[in-house]
């Protein structure tokens, strides 16, 4: 044992012990905060085959960073070289030690391998391993150099704005950046003295004077050990806590755990799994179009984690889901945002006694049509839908014809969950009593609510899906027009519910659909989203104009969307015709 000990190991050793202890304490504390459902799920699934797919995802996402690669090659390379490279250094180092030393040895031998094992022919393929380790070190170093370049010129990595970190995070980052150059330096000194390096360390070592190396060897290894120790102690309190937490989160998700109405242990894992990479910043309309800073998910999660959330920041989010779609860790950012909007004492019971008397219409064999509040402000959409129902001889019950009960999602998004559930209860009761077998809605907000927050026993469809079904089955015939159109994906319908194909299929059968730069999950929010109550009309207008410019850049004859709110937003600002998809279908039905 004493062969493999030197006082300079101590900082590293203390760091590792501190790191493991703190992580275990934190993880146990968060586990205790799981609610009963989460705990049951965890215990039920912990020994299932999902284990394997979690390992697979860990390799792809936590080590290789596939999602970041897809976004930008250099950014992906930078992240994966540090993550995968460091992992390989530890792994290959352990294998090398195992081959070189028989019998028991302390676990740090692999970390300081070159210092403790001087013999360049310690085992059969020792030279190969020396070169391999040097190659991996070079791989990691290239990532560190890229990280340094990124902090100066981030546009090279496809990022206009990078995250602004707190001082402690920056300190931790520098200790991380120091680890690998120091390792290179110390191994080179040792290579000068004992000729046991690979192509890199030996090449560098040969250039160093023997006396200099003799004097500086121990200080260099000590500094290396200090850098490691500092990083390990600081890690659990900094953004680098994501290194382990992200892996655990992948497993938790595979085991079926998810965010809850209230803050739970899972939220704590998610908060710490955020690496503060800053990818969400460029994508946030509030930064992109309004230059608002500090409200993006990265800063919101950071403030939450350090227990200093500001109410205004929780409210200042469009809930357009763009950041969630781009997040490489796949955090449930919208749910965390909503948990923090909890209105507590304001959120009271039995506010809506006035809807109690509403009666359901006997609609056995009919379709329930729920236009939604916003559709009442765009009567064209409602009219088109009723026309389509008549055309295909579909009997319907127009549920909110005269008296509109809101679906509850606007309240729910703002944190009034008790009040929202009251509205949901009444709507559910009406729909169940009606005996209908399908619900069609014209508003993506209602659609997402019925789909996700309600638990309805009948099929729920947005009118794009419904019309697409009619056209596909031949019940509704449409003629081809020579219009060139662009389609705007509403946030709630696209990123919210994943409906991208149905509207595109309909449009392709009627018009020529032009491709736009921001489509499908990259669609831009129209700015009128109900998620945000903080920004002013002027600010909404700016976001809307940015989205519209992107659509108009293709010079279409017509902008088509599938959301009354988006339609209203665009219609106000452009000479270009704006229509809902239902209106377009109505005009092109073959009578």
């Amino acid at each position, binding site marked *: 044992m004493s062969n493999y000990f030197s006082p300079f190991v101590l900082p590293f050793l203390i760091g590792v012990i501190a790191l493991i202890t703190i992580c275990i304490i934190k993880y146990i504390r968060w586990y205790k905060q799981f609610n009963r459902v989460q705990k049951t799920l965890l215990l039920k699934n912990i020994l299932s085959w999902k284990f394997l797919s979690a390992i697979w995802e860990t390799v792809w996402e936590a080590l290789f960073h596939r999602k970041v690669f897809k976004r930008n090659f250099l950014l992906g390379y930078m992240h994966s070289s540090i993550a995968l490279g460091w992992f390989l250094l530890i792994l290959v180092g352990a294998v090398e030690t195992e081959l070189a030393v028989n019998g028991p040895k302390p676990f740090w031998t692999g970390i300081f391998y070159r210092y403790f094992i001087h013999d360049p022919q310690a085992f059969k393929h020792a030279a190969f391993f020396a070169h391999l380790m040097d190659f991996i070190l070079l791989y990691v170093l290239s990532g560190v150099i890229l990280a340094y370049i990124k902090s100066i010129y981030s546009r090279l990595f496809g990022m206009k704005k990078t995250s602004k970190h707190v001082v402690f995070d920056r300190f931790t980052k520098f200790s991380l950046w120091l680890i690998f150059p120091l390792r290179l330096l110390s191994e080179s000194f040792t290579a000068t003295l004992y000729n046991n390096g690979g192509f890199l360390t030996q090449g560098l070592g040969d250039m160093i004077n023997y006396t200099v190396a003799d004097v500086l060897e121990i200080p260099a290894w000590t500094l290396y050990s200090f850098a490691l120790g500092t990083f390990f102690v600081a890690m659990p309190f900094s953004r680098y806590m994501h290194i382990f937490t992200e892996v655990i989160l992948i497993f938790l998700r595979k085991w079926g755990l998810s965010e809850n109405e209230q803050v739970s242990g899972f939220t704590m894992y998610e908060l710490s799994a955020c690496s503060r990479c800053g990818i969400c910043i460029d994508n946030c309309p509030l930064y992109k179009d309004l230059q608002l800073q500090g409200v993006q998910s990265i800063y919101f999660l950071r403030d939450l984690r350090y227990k200093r959330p500001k109410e205004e920041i929780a409210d200042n989010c469009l809930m357009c889901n763009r950041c969630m779609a781009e997040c490489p860790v796949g955090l449930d950012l919208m749910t965390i945002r909503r948990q923090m909007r909890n209105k507590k004492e304001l959120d009271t019971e039995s*506010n809506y006694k006035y809807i109690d008397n509403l009666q359901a219409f006997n609609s056995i064999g009919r379709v329930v049509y729920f236009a939604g509040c*916003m559709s009442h402000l765009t009567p064209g959409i409602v009219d088109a839908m009723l026309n389509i129902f008549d055309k295909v001889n579909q009997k319907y019950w127009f549920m909110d014809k005269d*008296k*509109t009960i809101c679906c509850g999602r606007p309240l729910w998004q703002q944190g009034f969950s008790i*009040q929202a559930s009251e509205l949901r209860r009444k709507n559910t009761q009406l729909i169940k009593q009606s005996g209908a077998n399908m619900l069609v809605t014209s508003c993506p907000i209602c659609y997402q609510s019925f789909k996700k927050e309600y638990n309805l026993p009948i099929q729920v469809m947005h009118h794009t899906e419904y019309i697409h079904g009619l056209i596909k089955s031949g019940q509704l015939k449409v003629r081809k027009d020579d219009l060139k159109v662009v389609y705007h994906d509403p946030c709630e319908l696209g990123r919210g519910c994943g409906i991208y194909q149905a509207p595109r299929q309909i449009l392709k059968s009627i018009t020529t659909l032009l491709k736009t730069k921001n489509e499908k999950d990259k669609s831009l929010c129209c700015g009128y989203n109900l998620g945000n109550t903080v920004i*002013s009309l002027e600010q909404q207008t700016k976001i809307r104009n940015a989205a519209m410019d992107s659509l108009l850049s293709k010079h279409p004859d017509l902008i088509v969307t599938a959301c009354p709110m988006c339609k209203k937003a665009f219609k106000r600002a452009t000479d270009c015709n704006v229509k809902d998809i239902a209106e377009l279908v109505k005009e092109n039905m073959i009578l």
Partner: protein
Amino acid sequence: MTNFGFKISNTRVIHLDECKMELVRKLYKEEPSFKRCISCGACAATCSARQFTDFNIRKLHTLFRRAQYEGVQQALKACMLCGKCTLVCPRGVNLRSLIIHMRKILFEANKK
């Protein structure tokens, strides 16, 4: 008496000295767009809750503006926050935010 759908209010007196104007000032500070309101009533005309009950958002924010807070807190709870009023407002008043802030301010004032 025949119901014409409206009635003439009784005369009443607002004691300016007794009005708690600080709540109104706070509301203007929290939601500055409210300063632009011209009380046109578009918000109340489009209101979903209005279809069921005598909930009248114009009346409520006008009362608030005149520091006549009595009953406003309770009445505001009928709002479903659907956002139609915000969308139709010709002056760009952020009514959803206004309603939430009115509720917040009144709740905190009555708690004390």
